[in-house]
């Protein structure tokens, strides 16, 4: 009997630690907005049918995609080859660059809800952490101040490459979980207390 209690406790605890956060109630839950009459959460970004396939590997995308050209981050010490935002970063910027309305989904193009304030990243990315570039062992050794992503633990279960990179690249989704899976503020993948998140990759 005692064992059963312990087992039940252990299982409850396990369940509680695996489901840390959820999209419902997060900044990306638009189900109660007056511009979303469906009352659904996923539909603003995904559709089961007739998805937009213009962005490579976009998951069943249902939101208008940005066509902006971005000013990229550059610096004297940057070693990575940073390109125009691609992959899922382009999807984030389809709301966060402020050129496409948040309510432009499901074919709608005349929406008028735009991101504003802190949430507005804009089309000038020169003041933002670089995204859409390959981060591999070669970059780590060239730079000298980065961990090797293929062998360094991310703290989330696997290596940096497994858990934080998408097709070997740093993207917005390397640091953020759009679905609030970890339940950390700012939709971060892990807490940045004492800059622990930055120090996952940067060897400072």
């Amino acid at each position: 009997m005692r064992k059963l209690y312990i087992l039940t406790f252990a299982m409850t605890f396990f369940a509680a630690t695996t489901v840390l956060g959820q999209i419902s109630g997060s900044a990306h839950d638009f189900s109660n907005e007056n511009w979303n009459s469906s009352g659904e959460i996923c539909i603003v970004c995904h559709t089961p049918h007739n998805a937009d396939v213009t962005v490579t590997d976009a998951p069943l995308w249902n939101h208008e995609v940005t066509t902006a050209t971005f000013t990229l981050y550059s610096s004297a010490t940057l070693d990575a080859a940073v390109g125009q935002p691609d992959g899922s970063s382009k999807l984030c910027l389809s709301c966060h660059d402020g050129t496409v309305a948040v309510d432009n989904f499901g074919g709608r193009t005349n929406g008028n809800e735009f991101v504003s304030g802190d949430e507005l990243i804009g089309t000038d990315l020169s003041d933002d952490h670089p995204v859409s570039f390959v981060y591999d062992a070669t970059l780590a050794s060239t730079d000298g101040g980065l961990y090797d992503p293929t062998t360094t633990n991310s703290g989330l279960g696997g290596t940096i490459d497994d858990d934080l990179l998408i097709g070997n690249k740093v993207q917005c989704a390397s640091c953020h979980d759009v679905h609030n899976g970890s339940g950390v503020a700012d939709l971060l993948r892990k807490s940045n207390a004492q800059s622990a998140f930055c120090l996952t990759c940067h060897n400072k």
Partner: protein
Amino acid sequence: MPVYLTYFSVLVLLLPGLNRPLLAQNFKGSMHDFQAMGNKLFESDKPCLVCHPPHRSSSAEETLPIWSSKAVKDTFTVYGSAGPAEQPGLPLGSSKLCLSCHDGTLALDSWGGRVNTVPFLNAGFEDRKNGLKNDHPISVKYTSTNAMRTGELNDPFISNSGLGNTIETDMLTNGTLQCSSCHDVHNGMGAGKLLVKTNKNSNLCLTCHKK
């Protein structure tokens, strides 16, 4: 109404499947009640016949209800993001039956042995004409291992579907996701868009996806 009831009583005995309620009042007037849609081209006063002929089947589809539509083509471009842990296969089983009308290339009135040329689906319904690349993956394995590996899906053998039993029992066909995982061709639930449950708050999506 008597027509419906006759067919119900006969067919319920004959056909295997996902064990969903078949409520005449929900089927009636749904988009698959072609008679109610006033679609004369079906030339049928028997609402079930278009899809279930009593004596003849045009295909030897595995484990499926007898079927009268013209056999569907075999090649589709399937959903191909790098994402899914399990790559979708070509449509199988009942999904092929759906696509025999919904691929948008076969005439709807090709049934009961006839091969006709009209009509096609109406605009707004013919998205699958260009293949399944932009549709939710189907014919994709959805197993406990698959769910564990991605960590993003509920375990189909444990999680409740909200329809009475587990996801595996109520929504999957031979452990795979098909059109009928999300849709009930007979509109048994009356949930709109022939869905197996309403998608209010994305509850249908969240049945399987941990988000």
